[in-house]
């Protein structure tokens, strides 16, 4: 007698439900960032007396923090690979490193926001200010949510209370993490590198 759960039979696509669900969600996220990026691109030159983008951006600094974020994708891959090999200690290690790199990036963003604010760019200063903080802020929130998920995962693994396939869960959060990184590449290029 075999146990049949509601999800007992193999999936029609061969991709598990959680992974397909995450891919679907990321498809939706593309449009979310698409809307925010379009808003920024429309408004980036409209400064009404406030500082212009070129006056406040510190490109070397942001390049370094972007590099840190991109490296976190590498450590995420290592975590997924370790999870597939069921190497629990390594999985936890790489997940923690990924979260730390992510936190470094968010820390950089907080520093940057503070610096910009002190140089006169508030949220209400100009259209550029509103749309810049909204776009990069949304990305920062996404990274923060990712960090929370990674750290929760480490905690849940330590108490071995994970519901479902462990490697599957790591991979699903990995998909999210890579997506957030890729979005940053686009934002960094459009916001910082292309002059107004």
């Amino acid at each position, binding site marked *: *007698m*075999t*146990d*049949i*759960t*509601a*999800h007992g*039979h193999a*999936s*029609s*696509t061969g*991709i598990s*439900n959680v992974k*397909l*669900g995450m891919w*679907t*969600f990321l*498809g*939706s*996220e*593309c*449009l*979310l960032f*698409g*809307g*925010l990026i379009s*808003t920024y691109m*429309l*408004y980036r030159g*409209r400064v*009404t007396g406030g500082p212009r983008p070129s006056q406040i951006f510190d490109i070397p600094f942001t390049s370094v923090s972007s590099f840190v974020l991109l490296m976190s994708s590498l450590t995420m891959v290592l975590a997924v690979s370790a999870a597939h090999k069921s190497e629990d200690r390594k999985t936890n290690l790489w997940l923690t490193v990924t979260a730390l790199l992510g936190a470094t990036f968010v820390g950089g963003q907080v520093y940057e926001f503070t610096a910009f604010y002190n140089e006169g760019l508030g*949220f*209400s200063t*100009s*259209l550029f*200010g*509103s*749309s810049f903080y*909204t776009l990069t802020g949304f990305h920062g929130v996404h990274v923060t949510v990712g960090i929370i998920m990674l750290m*929760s995962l480490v905690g*849940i693994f330590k108490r071995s*209370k994970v*519901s*479902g396939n462990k490697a599957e869960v790591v991979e699903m959060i990995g998909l999210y993490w890579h997506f957030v990184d890729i979005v940053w590449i686009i934002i960094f290029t459009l916001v910082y590198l292309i002059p107004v």
Partner: protein
Amino acid sequence: MAIMEREIEVITPITATPSSTYGVLKRPVAATGWRAWVFTVDHKKLGLMYGVTAMFFFIVGGVEALLIRLQLAAPNGKVLNADLYNQMFTMHATTMVFLFVMPMAAGFANYFIPLQIGARDVAFPRMNALGFWLLLFGGIFINLSWFLGGAADGGWFMYAPNSGPVFSPTHGIDFWAFGLQIAGIASLTGAINLIVTVLNMRAPGMTLMKMPIFTWMMTVVQFLLLFAVPVITVALFLLSFQRNFGARFFDVAAGADPLLWQHLFWIFGHPEVYILVLPSFGIVSEVLPVFSRKPLFGYPFVVFSGAAIGFVGWGVWAHHMFASGLGPVSVAVFSLTTMAIAVPTGVKIINWTLTMWGGKLVFSTAMKFSIGLIVLFTVGGLSGVTHSVAPSDTQQTDTYYIVAHFHYVLFGGGVLGIFSGLYYWWPKMFGKMLNERLGNWNFWLMVIGMNLTFGPMHILGLQGQPRRMYQFTNARSGEGLFNFAFWNLVASIGSFVLAVGILLFLINVVITARNPTKSPLDPWNARSLEWMTSNPPKEHNFDVIPTVHHLDEFFHRKYEEDSATHTMRQIATAEEIMAEQERNADAHIHMPSPSYWPVVLAFGLPVITFGMIFSHLIAVFGAIIVFFAAFGWALEPSTAPASDFETNNSAPGKALESVGKS
């Protein structure tokens, strides 16, 4: 038509004993009472809850519409003042679009997609519950504004800069924006859930091109939602940030482009139109073949034209903005795409007509509503094509002609389709058939009422009555008998005829509920898988997951083609197929277990948004609820461990096992 002669044995619902504690709370286990509904993750219960919620908001939106029509019934209307009138039409549209048609479609999708594809539930049952609760709380949240200083008053598309705090100082628009965000999350989770369900959980043998047409159309809708909802999310965030945190997005003094809002809104808003009407197209495509006793004519064409609508629907949004000065190139492009999107819709109309052609038509109430949709949606579609002619559209923009057009497509298309589905699937959902005689009255009063209400609006629009005008004077109503005042009175009378029609539906529901007569197992001689189980379906839907060989699998299990005469010959009744399934029933079916977390998590969001408007401290409290609920959720497996199922002697596995042995 066979009448069910014996009672199908109903297997006791799963009563699990919670053996383990996850997070803080033990799993809910009640199989009856209110707990069985509030903590349920069963797609059928959630489908019904969506339906009831939608019906409630339909009545709310309907009362708002009647107040609008009362105000305009005669010159110098005194029922509402200008301010209240603005709130009334804004909330009428918001309620009907976001809180009636969308949840009703979500309800049908929830209930019938798993049944139509031969699955036992959706891919993410708890997320499904979350979606419902978010929708309900979002809807209540929007309507709270009536009691907290006034509702939103900027029209359902809330154009900037009119939506800014300067022009709308009450909290109405804040409630509106946050409430729609919450409802938007519901749509997004629903879309992800149903897409994964359809792609991953079809019964063995059911290829995409053997999928019932309703499931196909709903899948297209879910993709539209998936990509359209984030765009309105962005727009609503921009609006909320401007109203609550001093952002400048639509502040013309800072050099803003108010057209940004229009673009974002309509990039969402036009796909939204198809989100509203494609579910009804799916329902009609199920109903027409059943009552014409013929397969759907050109199934692949209906599928691909539905998908084509889904794609082209993204390239027409600016036809809502022809009067905004987009420039000749944009206007020409969007005129052409708008003409183009009429083609796949026309394909569907032709397919439905040819499905009926030469069929043995059965004029049940469901069939009448479907035929009503074909006729009245075509009227609305034709006035829609006139909008693609930009010079003509520029004249019609913001007149009652537009109001007439979209009510013909949304009421004549969307709502009639929904009623067709209600009459068609009622026996499936409740095991009883709605009264057909009352149904007949229901149908004719609705059709006559809607034509009386919305038909004259074409004339009013062409005579120049502006949309959203709250009052007209005798001097403005013109000369002769057929003036403004006359047609407005006709429309107002029509709206009450319509209301009586809908009231008859509600009466029909009550009468049916009190009538002890059970429906036959297969009352309509239906074609698709959802009819291959009991009425209402068991908690686990199918005793044995069917293996699919044909489009219209259920029909092909009942009928076989006689090779000599090329006629269809019945080889099995629904009862026999059902009994066969029970003999081979799967043992030990573990359904996803109920959970507290969806409703708790969903409750946290309106607390956050309430706090955003009134006090950030409350928002922090809401965030804490959401945070803990998310952790409780993550730590709880969606299906309780096997040990939870073993303790009870009447567990379905055992019961089914004995069925198998008898």
